[in-house]
């Protein structure tokens, strides 16, 4: 396992459409493991293959704050979205230090293949729904900054902590 370099906005690789994965080779397994490791190290909730410079339809997502439970999505597609929406701040490891308001569906249902190329379906709500939409956009060369309502803003600096007993 190794950390990969995260490509940042302005890098043309982030604007391209990714190719489907036909089979899981040992190289793909390495890539997926590295993506998970890189996501954790950067403290992100999701990472798409183009963000590490690979134009393949692979994303990894983990929205749990403590526990490591990565969701691996190969050739993912969205099946259904809810009418109900959520509007809130979104950030991206490829746009460091920034955030912006984006409206996404409250729930999504998606289909993907896992690391054994077995097809599965997943339903996400709230942050997970947002992460699935955000990461899948990457596979088609779309960054969230094109969907921001209003202005991008800097991330708030960590406030001073007061710890109560």
């Amino acid at each position: 396992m190794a950390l990969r370099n995260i490509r940042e906005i302005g890098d043309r690789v982030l604007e391209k459409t990714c190719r489907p994965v036909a089979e899981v080779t040992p190289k793909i397994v390495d890539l997926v493991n590295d993506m998970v490791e890189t996501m954790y190290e950067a403290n992100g909730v999701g990472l798409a293959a183009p963000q590490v410079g690979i134009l393949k339809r692979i994303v990894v997502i983990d929205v749990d704050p403590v526990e490591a439970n990565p969701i691996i999505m190969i050739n993912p597609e969205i099946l259904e979205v809810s009418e109900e929406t959520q509007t809130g701040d979104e950030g991206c490891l490829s746009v460091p230090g920034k955030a912006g308001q984006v409206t996404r569906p409250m729930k999504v249902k998606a289909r993907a293949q896992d690391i054994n190329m077995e097809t599965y379906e997943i339903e996400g709500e709230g942050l997970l729904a947002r992460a699935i939409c955000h990461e899948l956009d990457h596979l088609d060369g779309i960054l969230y900054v094109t969907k921001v309502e209003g202005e991008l803003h800097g991330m708030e600096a960590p406030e001073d902590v007061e710890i109560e007993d």
Partner: protein
Amino acid sequence: MANAVNIRELALLSLLEMQQEGKQSHRVIRGVLDKYQYLPKQDRAFFTRLCQGTLEYRPQLDYILNQYSSVKTKKMKPVIREILRMAVYQLYYMDQVPDSAVVNEAVKLAMKKGFKSLKGFVNGVLRTAVRDKGNLKFPGPDQPLKYLEVQYAMPEYLADKWLKAYGLEQTAKICQAFLEEKPLTVRLRDHGSQEEKEAILQELEEAGVEVLPAPYLEMARILKGYNTLQYLPAFYEGKLQVQDVSSMLAVECAGIQPGQKVLDLCAAPGGKTILAADRTGESGSVLSRDLTDYKTELIRDNLERCNIHHVKTEARDAAISDPALLDQMDVVIADVPCSGYGVIGRKPDIKYRASLENQQELVDLQRAILKNAASYVKPGGVLLFSTCTIAEEENENNVRFIREELGLKSESLDPYLPEELHCASTQEGYLQLLPGTHSCDGFFVSRFRKC
């Protein structure tokens, strides 16, 4: 402690880096210390201790955390897990930091790393750990594997291996010795002159360094209270060489005489080569080899610093036979690549990487090297075989291989060793130094003569 937050963040990043494939903890720590040379002495010491300790005690720290966290450490995301481990290490082993400061700094660090939502979690787990510190019980000797894993922070694979070889009491002693502070041992290059020795010692004293006697050898000393070794005149003038006593003993067992031709096969960073060169004198010569240019560069740096000109370095694979050297050498030193279990006290990452799979591969490599090493010894010359491990497969079994397959004869080590180390095996031609029993790294030395 204005810098404390940054030091902890530096430690966090270093600990995460150490867990990546191919990274060695001592190199990561050295890299940071070299980069941040301007840091005050106490910050450097705090950083080193926190990194080493958190790495070294990992199985115990995880046991403690798992008493208080609903998410077990195995399942935790790496950044938050490392922040918690660092905090528990400080709670248990760094008395100079108040418990409340440990918790506050851990929460701040988690937030700085973007884990704002985990403020409550980090705070909760650590507060409970503080409150329960006096009550927590570790598994006892009635569960030997669990006991060794938690009390002595030794992963199951090695704990099990040594339990079978040495029994519980001896294994506990070995593991305990690994956890104790490892002093920096150096060799004084006084060339046997009392005057030169006094001069070196005085130079060290003037630099404010505390110099303590080391076990077994008069030329060895323990250094304490220095800031950056590289800045000590005695060091950069080449008057001392960093080397564990065990490694000095190995070279001494070769019994090198002035004028002899010596080959050091796996030589980096060069401690043995330099001692061998000091023994041959300029009327003799040393050929010093290691696998890569990076490694021979380390040797050359040390040779240059020590102002030694009768050593030649070459990057060569010791496992590939070199016909030019057949029957050429008075002495061949083969300190072969090994599992390194003897130096776990200095390089704790070794214990986490130990596995059964690597064992046979290593032995095959060792035997390929030993076969070549023996062929380079001239008839009547000496082969010195050593490792820094405590595994029978790599030590005693290879002695048998050298005797039976390569046809060399074991020779007693007693003439070269201080009396306190004499035992049945030294007379038979080999010595296993065990941490906890002997006052040095775990090391294996054996001596053979070619007929």
